[in-house]
């Protein structure tokens, strides 16, 4: 069997998702947006903080979704990009006194560069091998952050404390609420940008690579360029999420960005539905709230309870939240008739 045949006959790693099925309808989007805008006015600061974290992890899962759902490449190393973004923001804010909002694009650009460079050697790998290579990146990151060489900037094992920004222009808002709306604005920008990216020529190139590399290259798609580009974009967005995370949590330390985070993000993507962008936020809610529910059921066995809940989700709705959304749409359609 030739190499070409091998690739062709190899089962598809990621199911093909048509690009229209990647987003929500306009009506639903507006309702969700209205809810996101209004709810914080009526809830406690703690809930607002949790919603902020939901958006931040949602953006990180979205980034992974572009990589895996869009271009068909796996990554277990997103925590590394998240950490680089978080440290970039924290260091710029605390050592260079740069405004928090300005640190985010820097975090994004640095992570894009790192992701793009990492994508170069990763080109030679695919499927589980690529997953393993990125896994190595995630395991190495906490140790790199501890290195004595960087300690002056990173604070070494003790981490760095970040100052939380106040609402600007004297707006009568708590820090939490301001940070929430700030995060929401960035999230919407990234979401809209991502949807447009996947609908563009580059997005079609990503998806053609996902569906069949050989066909894509024979149609003139520069496979290696687009593969590394997908890595770069995904890493860049993850970096912005990391920067936001550092500002919201007010603290960065090597122990915050272990492989557990990478696996959580991966989990969020699968639960939300691979390749379905709105699902990223459903998945993010899953990784934030379900461990709390599991802990409420049993403190000693929280891990096991979480495992059972996860298993149920995967077993009952293997395509994640997307499946529920499709069923919901069909029901709505039937009612209309």
């Amino acid at each position: 069997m030739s190499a070409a045949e091998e690739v062709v006959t190899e089962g598809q790693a990621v199911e093909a998702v048509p690009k229209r099925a990647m987003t929500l309808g306009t009506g639903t989007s507006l309702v969700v947006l209205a809810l996101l805008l209004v709810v914080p006015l009526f809830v406690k600061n703690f809930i607002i903080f949790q919603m902020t974290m939901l958006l931040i992890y949602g953006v990180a899962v979205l980034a992974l979704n572009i990589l895996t759902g869009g271009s068909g490449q796996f990554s277990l190393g997103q925590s590394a990009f998240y950490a680089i973004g978080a440290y970039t923001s924290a260091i710029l804010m605390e050592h260079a006194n740069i405004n928090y909002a300005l640190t985010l694009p820097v975090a994004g650009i640095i992570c894009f560069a790192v992701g793009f460079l990492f994508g170069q050697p990763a080109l030679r790998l695919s499927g589980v091998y690529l997953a393993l290579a990125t896994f190595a990146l995630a395991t190495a990151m906490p140790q790199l952050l501890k290195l004595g060489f960087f300690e002056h900037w990173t604070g070494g094992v003790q981490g760095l404390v970040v100052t939380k920004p106040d609402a600007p222009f004297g707006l009568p808002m708590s820090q939490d609420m301001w940070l929430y709306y700030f995060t929401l604005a960035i999230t919407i920008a990234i979401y809209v940008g991502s949807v447009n990216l996947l609908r563009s020529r580059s997005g079609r190139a990503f998806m053609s690579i996902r569906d069949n590399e050989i066909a894509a290259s024979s149609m003139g798609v520069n496979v290696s360029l687009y593969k590394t580009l997908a890595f770069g974009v995904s890493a860049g967005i993850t970096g912005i999420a990391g920067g936001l995370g550092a500002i919201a949590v007010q603290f960065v330390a090597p122990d915050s960005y272990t492989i557990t985070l990478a696996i959580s993000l991966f989990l969020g993507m699968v639960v939300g539905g691979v390749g379905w962008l709105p699902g990223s936020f459903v998945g993010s809610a899953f990784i934030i709230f379900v461990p709390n529910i599991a802990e409420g059921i049993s403190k000693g066995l929280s891990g096991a309870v979480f495992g059972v809940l996860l298993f149920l989700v995967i077993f009952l709705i293997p395509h994640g939240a997307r499946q529920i959304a499709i069923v919901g749409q069909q029901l709505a359609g039937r009612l209309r008739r």
Partner: protein
Amino acid sequence: MLLTGLRTAALAAVAIVCVSQSALAQKKYDTGASDTEIKIGNIMPYSGPASAYGVIGKTEQAYFNKINAEGGINGRKIKFISYDDGYSPPKAVEQARKLVESDEVLVVFNPLGTPSNSAIQKYLNGKKVPQLFVATGATKWNDPKDFPWTMGWQPSYQSEAHIYAKYLLKEKPDARIGVLYQNDDFGKDYLKGLKDGLGAKASMIAAEESYETTEPSIDGHIVKLKATGVGVFISITTPKFAAQAIKKLAEIDWHPLHIVSNVSASVGGVIKPAGFENSQGILSAAYAKDGADSQWDNDPGMKKFLDFLAKNYPEGNRLDGSVVYGYGVAQTLVKVLQMCGDDLTRANVMKQAASLKDFEPDTLLPGIKINTSATDFAPIEQLQMMRFKGEKWDLFGDIISGELSN
């Protein structure tokens, strides 16, 4: 006329202030305290890499159950709310906010881990919520000026290291020291304490080797240290690695003066697995009694502890140092809350925690006392040196204070 009028007014004002103060002093509450209940929050790694320490939270819960069964504190029951952070700082922030803003606890008590506590310190101090008796030995918790709402409990790693430095300067002033340390906040803090303690003679440290907790074996580091020909081996290690080191030393027939950190001085957890015959003559320092050590079987304080295990916490293992720890720290909190009387405000809790005088929890070594003041937020600062002999630790020398000068 005018003068007398003023004087009367002033006197009246003073009288009113006095009356209102005494009226207020009778009963005063902040969020989380009431006539019937005191809410105490806690964060523990019940899951994740440090889940072995989760026992501390369970012991504390059992201890508070015992106090409640005995009628509570001044008639108020303790409601202990403990959450899991999986040893992850962002999760610790989420849980701390949940405790303060959603459960509305009076204090956050004994949250575990240096990274997790660093992450929540600024938030809790900003909210003026006590972060009381944190479960970490980092030195930075004793900083009442910058963080008046944060207080440690156990001796800091640096003060313990000072004690070894003092001992070595006195007993072996010409020794060359080899140090094996864990490459994290614990190991580095400790190494700094050792160097500071040796002061001008820090050059006595001839070799330093660090290891990562992810390494399966530390044999290579030990062989390297032996090759440098040092006469003193200081093992700044967590239990699993301390036991490996003791075994390896016996295996390669190397017999330097061996000091293990207090973290790994547990007879049940380290010495026994490493073998009694390999552990003779090892030095360490302690502040708490070891549940595995038979010399405390008739000690009144330890009897109370064993009684508690039998009646209130049968699943607790007396050999586990975390159980002894949880008991001691929970007892200290109960003492502070008793001292608060009916003034259960957050400010008063901190004030009382900073006025402990010669308090001796049941599980601390005889002679070791908890003392705090408005400028001293380090409750336990004393330790005693000990040498392993036969099947138990022999305490020797005076109780030494490792108090840090800064």
